[in-house]
């Protein structure tokens, strides 16, 4: 729109407006250089700002997945170690049995030595199966707050026809290598003496023992105390569970390691050591208990048959190791993928919200010189007046 008549107020206001606009541009350019961010408020680039937010969420998710993979990897490593130990241990047990079978003249004594050694291995296996990572028992399934496997657990019960006041006040395993799994009975022949019977074998282990209330009575590795006053004819039955009972559950634990990918990260004891749910699964605890029993009972046939079972047990452990190995491979490749994804997301965020510094600085310089030029022009336009020339 052509202005035909220029007045003082037009000159002043247009100069002021022009300088204002240039100053705003200058401030904007300066902020861009100072923050090195292209998007400082939503309205700078609404779509870009939304995209950045979206990408940040993705990035946080990816980083979370990386943490989950970390957790899964550390568990896999713990399983791998435990399984290797179990494998070595089974190989050693098998060796002992082979040696026992190959020895021409074996005696009860040498067999008992082997039995005790295998009991030791069984106890170690239980320790391995009770491995903890942090506070979690890793073979326990969902019931991860308590050890999933127990060794032998003894218990005593007073006979139904007892007339005295005697009670079993304490019972514990004192020597696991001597625990047989047989049922025993303490029979009071008088208030002051008792016999000990092996009910399973129908033999008397000792007779006429002197009873002192509260004193330790040890029967086949199990120590108990009877207090009170038992009467003649009172009995106490002593039993023990087989070693290796499982108290965990079959709970599978999964973690999300990629968007929507829930990968299992645990092995349960039921599966690994008891063979539950595995084709041709074998109860390894049972195997060791059987071997001990066969050694003590001189059962050569069972011993010989156990060799195949040992092979199967080792295959089972190795099979589980293979499962863990597969998981480790998956986790390794996932880490690589996630790290790539995180990097490219970061680059994308940067490309949207960061400025090219060289460009920003040259833009700043351009705006700055435009500002200076407009100030210079303004100074020369406002100054003169006709009055300066009227003399």
């Amino acid at each position, binding site marked *: *729109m052509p*202005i*035909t*008549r*220029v*007045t*003082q*107020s*037009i000159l002043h*206001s*247009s100069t002021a*407006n022009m300088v204002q606009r240039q100053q705003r541009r200058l401030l904007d350019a300066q902020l861009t250089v100072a923050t090195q*961010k292209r*998007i*400082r*408020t*939503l*309205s*700078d*680039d*609404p*779509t870009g*700002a*939304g995209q*950045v*937010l*979206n990408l*940040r*969420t993705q990035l*946080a*998710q990816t980083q*979370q997945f990386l*943490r*989950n993979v970390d*957790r899964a990897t550390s568990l896999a490593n713990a399983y791998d170690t435990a399984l290797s130990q179990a494998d070595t241990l089974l190989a050693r047990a098998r060796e002992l049995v082979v040696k026992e079978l190959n020895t021409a003249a074996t005696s009860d004594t040498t067999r008992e030595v082997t039995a005790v050694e295998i009991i030791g291995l069984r106890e170690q296996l239980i320790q391995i199966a009770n491995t903890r990572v*942090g*506070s*979690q028992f890793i073979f*326990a*399934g*969902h*019931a*991860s*707050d308590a050890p999933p496997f127990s060794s032998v657990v003894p218990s005593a019960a007073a006979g139904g026809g007892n007339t005295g006041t005697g009670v079993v006040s304490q019972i514990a395993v004192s020597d696991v290598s001597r625990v047989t799994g047989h049922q025993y009975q303490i029979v009071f022949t008088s208030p002051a003496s008792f016999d000990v019977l092996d009910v399973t074998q129908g033999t008397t282990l000792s007779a006429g023992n002197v009873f002192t209330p509260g004193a330790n009575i040890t029967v086949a590795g199990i120590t108990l105390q009877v207090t009170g006053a038992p009467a003649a004819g009172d009995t106490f039955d002593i039993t023990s569970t087989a070693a290796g009972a499982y108290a965990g*559950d079959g*709970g599978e*634990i*999964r*973690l*999300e390691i990629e*968007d*929507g990918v*829930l990968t299992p990260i*645990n092995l349960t004891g039921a599966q690994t050591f008891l063979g539950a749910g595995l084709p041709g699964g074998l109860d390894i605890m049972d195997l060791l208990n059987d071997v001990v029993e066969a050694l003590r009972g001189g059962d050569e046939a069972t011993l010989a048959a156990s060799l195949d079972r040992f092979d199967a047990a080792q295959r089972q452990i190795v099979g589980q190791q293979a499962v863990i190995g597969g998981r480790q491979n998956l986790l390794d490749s996932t880490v690589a993928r996630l790290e790539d994804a995180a990097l490219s997301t970061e680059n994308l965020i940067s490309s949207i*919200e960061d400025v090219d510094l060289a460009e920003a600085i040259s833009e700043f310089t351009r705006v700055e010189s435009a500002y200076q030029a407009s100030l210079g022009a303004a100074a020369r336009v406002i100054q003169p*007046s*006709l*009055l300066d020339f*009227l003399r």
Partner: protein
Amino acid sequence: MSSFVGSIGGILNTGRQGIFVNQIALRVTGQNIANVNTPGYTRQRPIFDPSAFGNGVSVRTIQQLRFRFYDAQLSTEQQSLGSLSVKQEVMSRLEAIFNETSGTGISTAMRDLFQSLHDLSSHPDGTAQREAVRTRAGSLGDVFAAVRGRVEATRRDADLQSKALVTQVNGLTAQIAALNDQITRQTTSAQAPNELIDQRQRLVNELSQIVSIQTFEDGPSLTVMIAGGHPLVEGVNAAELSTREDMANGGMSRILYHLPGGVTADITGRISEGKIGGLLAVRDGDVVEQLRQIDQLAAQLMTRFNLQHRLGTGLDGVSGRDLFSQAPVWSAPGPGSTSNVGQTGSAIVDQSLLTFQDYEVRFTSATTYDLVNTTTGAALATGATYTPGSAIVFDGISITLDNLAGPPLAGDVVRVNSYTGASGSLTLDPAVAGDLRALAAGLSAEPGDNRNALALAGLESALAMGGGTATFANFFEAALTRLGVRSRQVTSDLEAQTLVVDQVQTLVDSLGGVSLDEESVNLIQYERAFQASARVISAVDEMMQTIIAMV
């Protein structure tokens, strides 16, 4: 012939008139120069009339260089400018509240919560991880509440500002009416009180920035019409604007118009421009929309989390617990409805049925109503019997309406939904807040069971919003993008409008502004004419001397 031979006295008179007229012209020039920096001042110039038969000159009038059309244009453009400038202020305040580029806010709080749930799925028995989930869930609620509080404060401030502006309007209209009175009394057939007219025009310009008006001249006085054709100033009378709290709109003000001895009217919906128009529009537009968005997000988030959490079991073996408080049931009378009927009780009866859509109970008589889902338009009930004090149950919501101030009138509407206010009431369920074991990480009570924690963490990627099209984060990003686009639009509109106003102002100034150079020229011109007129008198004097000397 005698008429051409003027008397010597006649010449003297002509010279006297010349001196007189040029003195007036010099005074006008002086006035122009003196007011070179007075805002709203319009330059004046004397209009000379030569007297008949060579009898000198007279000043017919002192004219203002004002063009009504430019004034009207400036007033119109300033109304838009006023509207846009307040809109831009409010929008940039909203933007600052939702500034997620700095990394604090709802989006970050949501991310943190999901992260803590993932950590919980890694360590479902960990006390630290449970504590983290509880803390993060609690602070998500705090962030929502803080954001809501700030948006509501923005809305209240906009409302307060519009109230203050209403008072300002009343002051301006009273002054304009008073000026109308003075101008009418001082206007003669020859001369208008120019400075008073300038003053009035300046007030009209000020008023244009505040409210949408139209003006027209009615003789010497100026009539100002406000939106809807009501006269704001008519002659010496000024109307009063006042405000009233609108309970149907969260206590926001409605603008009432009252002409003493005349009509009273509600003109809220008619003020579209000026600062008041802009504030009303942004207050009930973008700000409310933004509140709606975060309410929707909070309501759906809390409901989805609750439904999933209910499936799980805490370490204490209890299942079926909520994680958060339940979505609120909101109700308010519809616009224009009486407040006869109100809510006396409400509950969410089934979270899984909630739609987060808007409903209306429309009374068709004192005892019957229709129930309509206004989002989809579906009628849920038609001609249902209204029993005061008994619950109306639909889509998971139960609401009890009762006659608080009398029976409903046909046409009364109660609006109902299950999301408004949710962002202000996202708190942890008391059971979870009180006991970490209540957090249901598993589907069983076993400490190693992480299945529910996984499912809760999985909600991050679930397409839970927008009818199964967006994740929570997507929804929030879309809301922010929309806000950014709106704000950018307003800002660029404001820049454009500023240029338009500058241009029109330039037009006005080009015609009516004072140019010092021009006035300097005039000064010399009138001074010379004055000097010459004085010379005429001294010439006549000499002539008289000559004649007297002849005697």
